[in-house]
């Protein structure tokens, strides 16, 4: 099976896992390895960003959360963004313009993460959830049809952030994942140690830049294969006719490989 087909299959599995409540199973103890609103009527897992905000409000030292997040980070790092996250899949569906990433701006997602944590502490409330576009799709809209939500100011704010995010996604491929996702920020901390990783064979790389044109995150995979923004989607692996890039599972070597030219 082609890598691309495997990824579509995994993304489908992620979507099914996110909506597994359709089987009648209620909320479980699991934390989702991506951005997926736990308020979604069909969710069976807890959103990591929603949960950490609640734990901050509760004053709980989040051992269970840290253990789960470290597990996901260690397994795949941002690979979950490329292979599993339903909101990442939506980003993929709207990835029409694979423009180059602005690396310094991409740290804005850390600012959003830090702001989310501080706002939860300062206001004793889940402030990020009130703006989260994933919650707009997965909670606001379904609950409108279930008769719990109404078209009011919070609903319109949700629709506004959703419209802005979708607009961003159309203009810039994986816009949310590149610049805004707080879960992506957390997982990116593990990108250089995660078992799933992108590997470069320097001898085979001609530096042609084909991989760069294929990367939805706007990276140069042949020089930035261990970049914190890499979602390990494997688009570059498929595009490289020389087989210089590959997705591997195992401990990563320290240091960066560079093409020998």
């Amino acid at each position, binding site marked *: 099976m082609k890598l691309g087909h495997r990824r579509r299959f995994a993304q489908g599995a992620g979507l099914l896992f996110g909506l597994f409540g359709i089987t009648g199973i209620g909320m479980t103890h699991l934390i989702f390895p991506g951005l997926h609103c736990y308020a979604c009527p069909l969710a069976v897992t807890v959103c990591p960003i929603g949960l950490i905000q609640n734990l901050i409000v509760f004053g709980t030292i989040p051992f*269970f959360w*840290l*253990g789960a997040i470290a597990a996901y980070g260690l397994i795949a790092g941002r690979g979950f963004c490329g292979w599993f996250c339903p909101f990442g899949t939506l980003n993929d569906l709207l990835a029409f313009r694979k423009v180059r990433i602005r690396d310094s701006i991409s740290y804005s997602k850390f600012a959003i993460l830090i702001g989310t944590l*501080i706002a939860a502490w300062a206001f*004793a409330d889940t402030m990020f959830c009130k703006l989260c576009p994933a919650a707009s799709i997965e*909670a606001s809209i379904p609950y409108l049809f279930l008769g719990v939500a109404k078209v009011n100011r*919070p609903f319109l704010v949700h629709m506004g952030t959703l419209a802005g995010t979708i607009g961003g996604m159309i203009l810039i491929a994986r816009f949310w994942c590149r610049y805004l996702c707080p879960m992506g920020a957390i997982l990116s901390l593990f990108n250089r140690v995660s078992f799933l990783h992108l590997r470069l064979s320097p001898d085979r790389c001609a530096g042609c830049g084909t991989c760069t044109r294929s990367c939805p995150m706007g990276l140069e995979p042949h020089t930035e294969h261990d970049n914190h923004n890499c979602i390990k989607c494997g688009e570059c692996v498929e595009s490289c006719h020389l087989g210089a890039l590959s997705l591997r599972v195992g401990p990563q070597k320290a240091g960066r490989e560079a093409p020998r030219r």
Partner: protein
Amino acid sequence: MNRRIRRAFVLAFVSALAIAIGGAGQEPILTFSLDNANLSIPQGGTAVAILRIENGSVYQGDDIEPILAIEGIEVSPEPETIEALPPFDSGTVVLRLSADEGLPLGIASHVIEVLYAYCIGDLCFQFAEEIPLTLTVTPPSEIPVEIPEVLPVESAYPFWIRLGALGFGFAFLAAAIVLRRMASVRWPLYAVLCLFVLGGLAYGVVLNQHEQAQGIGAVLCTSCVGIEEAQHGEPEWTPAGIAALETIDEEIELLVFYAVWCHACPYAEAMVEAAASHNSRIGFRFVDVDVEPELAEASGVVRTGRTVVPAILRVDTGKILFGAEGLEARLIDLLGGDS
């Protein structure tokens, strides 16, 4: 430059997390335990119950007042009120019980209600905790009651142990990262990360945090995800609303479903309480959905697997209101008042 920015963000993230975990919000901060939850008291005699109070948070508990009201028994708490319990401190209240001679024999369950408050800046939270007490009334006895020595009780997992565990975890992680960077030794980092995963999950399960996560996910607080705005104002009924309430001439029982961490719930609770104060035919009971999930499910406040709070159920008709927005008009409609 990029590396500096990244380091700054990582440092800020860790700092924010450290600051944040020291914070607390609308969550009970005090834990209570009774030295003797099964107490015996002779007719015409006395007994002593010792209530121990632990503050495991960074906030000060204020005006802690235990209330125990039992017919035929005079209760004298010492002290009557603990005005302030500092962070991470503990306190004790001795409840002296004096029974009437004519008190009926037998076993009965009672509840010690403890009221307290705490504030984060200008934002204050009030709580009423209930501690069960089983009281056995025995025939008169000549044996004098011995007052047990009041000793502080250590919590099984004090806050400083949890904080220390987290600190050790991050310290080992930092050391392993340095080793990987400086000496290109990768196995210590993987070993520490594996320990971080296993230790975090295991200790989290020991502390019941997996249940806490499941509980948070299973309950939909309408204001938390932005389905409606949280109401923080005073729950005031308009004169027209009060007039409509006064027209209700049938006995109505309401169940108000709430969660302690739900921001919209206190407003809904207070509105129902105020409605009941204007018309004595309106009865109500507050139901904590985390404590009575079965009742919530049986009452229909569960929507496709989520318990939605706040929810107000009129028991005789089964009609339910969700949320706290525009509550006055919706409550009058629910109660059948003439507006």
